[in-house]
């Protein structure tokens, strides 16, 4: 993965240096005050932007002709999507603009408000209805908890607010709202268009909207009636639609649960599901495949049946995505805006071009702007507007710059032929895999048991060089020096407690008195300060010169306790020297 990123970086460098001349810088206004996302921006004769404003003010529908702002319409609520579409056959064929905001779609014709559509309200839970009719007399305590368990979803207006109020506020609230019937209203989360029954660029299109209620609606272009309603397992956030409503169509939606669902005509439920490993940030369809930008700095491509085609690792998180569809040149690619102030252009998994921007790009839109077909329109985090125009002579060569497997990987190695032994073994393994696995597991369990037993035994008999006692945590090791017959035995004793000193300890040796003599063989240890290492020397004399050796056992004892705190077995070396006399 690292290596892939490194290669990527190197290639990025390469691509960037030879390609900065493909775009003309037509316009850059760093203080255009446009705060928007790719879903709220539309191009054509003019540039239409659903401006989210700053905070709750300045939410506007802005229209640019060329570099100048030609119209502004105040919007009541934040826009969630904007599309331009032809709603009728009238001449001249100027498209209408639909802006989704809250539960409404505002339709503009010739930049003038034309029609407002409201999503049909959802059904009200009968229990809620009952509570609201009784709410004037009944206190919340009797119904609130009961209701909370029975409707897990959001409450209808105005009941939801009512349930959150303090008891003393309830009465005023009920009096204020008691005339109103209960209603449950969902809001639009995404919007797109779908040609009714003709494929032409300016054919009449239906609006397709995704709602917070996990539904997809297809609306009739003229009557604004719901032509079709489909349900999803989660809330749609990004939508792409292709085909014709009366013939065959496909709706691809990325949802808040991190899945992508593909819906088709004649099926009210998703046909295919793509489960992503991280949340989708951008969704673009190229021909029949979808390209998804994910939160994990990856770009993934899937077929329309949900089969994964490729993955590209990006150098920075994805901010936004857009389709670069240059009709006159028959060129299609995906634009990916990254948080490192780059917009990268991918055709399949090949990085073709990098556009560096002065600020992080939050919305991208490629296409016709005025008279220029190859316009790249971007808005930035700081509210800037950037317009670049693709040079007439620019070409993107399709050289495969993907950081694929290294070349060496395809060189055939001279692998020796399989031996009979190997083949037999493989056969045996294949045939007895289950039995082998069981035998291995059995042995493993036995081993674990044996070691656990040994450990317990060691703890019980204080045979370890580490004290198991919590009150006197001690550590000891021993070193033997000398060739013989005199040896020096150094015991390093350490109190491993955090701050408590240890007192009243003694050391005693146990050995074969026919072989060794020790002076002294029992002594007291001074107070042990925590953390310090105390070297204690003892001298051992080997009494025989027959070339044999034995074990000397060391016990660290505490006054008043019969069991030693620590035990060490020292394997004495063979005495190689001769006694002096």
């Amino acid at each position: 993965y690292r290596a892939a990123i490194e290669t990527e970086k190197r290639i990025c460098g390469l691509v960037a240096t030879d390609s900065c001349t493909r775009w003309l810088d037509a316009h850059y206004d760093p203080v255009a005050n446009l705060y928007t996302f790719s879903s709220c921006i539309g191009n054509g004769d003019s540039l239409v932007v659903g401006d989210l404003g700053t905070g709750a003010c300045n939410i506007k529908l802005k229209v640019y002709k060329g570099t100048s702002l030609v119209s502004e319409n105040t919007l009541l609520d934040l826009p969630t999507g904007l599309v331009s579409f032809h709603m009728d056959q009238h001449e001249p064929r100027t498209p209408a603009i639909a802006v989704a905001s809250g539960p409404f779609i505002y339709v503009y014709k010739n930049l003038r408000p034309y029609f407002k559509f409201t999503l049909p309200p959802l059904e009200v839970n009968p229990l809620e209805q009952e509570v609201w009719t009784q709410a004037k007399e009944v206190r919340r305590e009797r119904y609130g908890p009961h209701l909370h368990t029975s409707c897990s979803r959001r409450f209808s207006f105005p009941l939801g607010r009512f349930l959150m109020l303090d008891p003393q506020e309830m009465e005023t609230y009920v009096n204020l709202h008691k005339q109103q019937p209960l209603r449950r209203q969902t809001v639009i989360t995404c919007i797109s268009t779908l040609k009714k029954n003709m494929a032409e660029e300016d054919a009449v299109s239906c609006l397709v909207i995704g709602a917070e209620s996990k539904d997809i609606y297809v609306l009739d272009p003229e009557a604004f009636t719901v032509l079709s309603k489909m349900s999803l397992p989660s809330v749609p956030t990004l939508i792409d639609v292709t085909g014709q409503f009366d013939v065959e169509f496909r709706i691809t939606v990325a949802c808040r649960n991190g899945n992508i669902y593909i819906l088709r005509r004649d099926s009210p439920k998703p046909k295919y599901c793509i489960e992503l490993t991280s949340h989708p940030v951008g969704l673009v369809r190229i021909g029949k495949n979808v390209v998804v930008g994910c939160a994990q700095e990856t770009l993934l491509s899937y077929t329309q049946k949900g089969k994964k085609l490729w993955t590209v690792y990006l150098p920075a998180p994805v901010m936004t995505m857009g389709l670069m569809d240059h009709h006159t040149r028959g060129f299609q690619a995906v634009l990916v805006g990254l948080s490192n102030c780059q917009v990268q252009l991918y055709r399949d998994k090949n990085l073709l071009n990098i556009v560096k921007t002065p600020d992080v790009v939050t919305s991208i839109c490629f296409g016709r702007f005025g008279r220029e077909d190859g316009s790249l329109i971007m808005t930035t985090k700081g509210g800037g507007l950037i317009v670049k125009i693709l040079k007439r002579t620019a070409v993107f060569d399709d050289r495969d710059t993907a950081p694929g497997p290294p070349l060496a990987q395809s060189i055939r190695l001279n692998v020796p032929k399989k031996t009979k032994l190997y083949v037999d073994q493989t056969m045996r393994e294949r045939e007895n895999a289950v039995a082998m696995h069981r035998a291995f597991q059995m042995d493993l369990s036995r081993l674990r048991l044996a070691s656990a037993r040994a450990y317990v035994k060691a703890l019980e008999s204080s045979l370890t060089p580490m004290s198991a006692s919590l009150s006197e945590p001690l550590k000891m090791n021993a070193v033997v020096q000398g060739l013989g017959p005199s040896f020096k035995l150094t015991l390093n004793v350490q109190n491993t407690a955090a701050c408590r000193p240890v007192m009243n300890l003694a050391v005693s040796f146990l050995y074969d008195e026919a072989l060794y003599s020790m002076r002294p063989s029992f002594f007291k240890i001074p107070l042990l300060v925590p953390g310090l290492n105390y070297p204690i020397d003892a001298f051992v004399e080997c009494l025989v010169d027959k070339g044999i050796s034995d074990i000397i056992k060391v016990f660290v004892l505490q006054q008043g306790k019969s069991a030693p705190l620590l035990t060490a077995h020292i394997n004495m070396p063979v005495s190689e020297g001769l006694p002096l006399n």
Partner: protein
Amino acid sequence: MGLFDKLAGWLGLKKKEVNVLCLGLDNSGKTTIINQLKPSNAQTQDIVPTIGFSIEKFKTSSLSFTVFDMSGQGRYRNLWEHYYKEGQAIIFVIDSGDKLRMVVAKEELDTLLNHPDIKHRRIPILFFANKMDLRDALSSVKVSQLLCLENIKDKPWHICASDALKGEGLQEGNKFSSCLALFHIEMHLGIIGRIIVVKLALVVK
């Protein structure tokens, strides 16, 4: 008989054929300008975007022009270079109201100036900063700045603001016609220059 006609007559350039290329982005007003140059009885009322190119011929007393009115649409711009060789003068029209595409105009102009058939020739260029009547039109000074015209050192050039719809200047005898007059001088100078070189060559012989 004007001074230039006299001059032309003196130089023996009577009814000299001059090929003029009219270039510029689509919608800049090339066809409209050329239409205005025609005698009023030959002018057309409705001007549609040019497809490919069209050829117009008209005469002043001393010169007979053949104007190649090229289409400025992106897909036809690659036709331009095929006429560079024959061209003896260039009219380059800019829509001064189209700020967004000023870079595109500059790009096409630079490509033109760097073309091998143009680069080393002292071919005169007349720029029209057209549509000056538009409210937010850039001035001819601003246009020449944006196109970096001051960098053109080896070719005679001139820029003037124009309103091709009204034919501003043509009737009143101001800017538009003086531009054309100047344009004539430049062309003559070009031709005179060449004649002098020829004469010098003869003298040396």
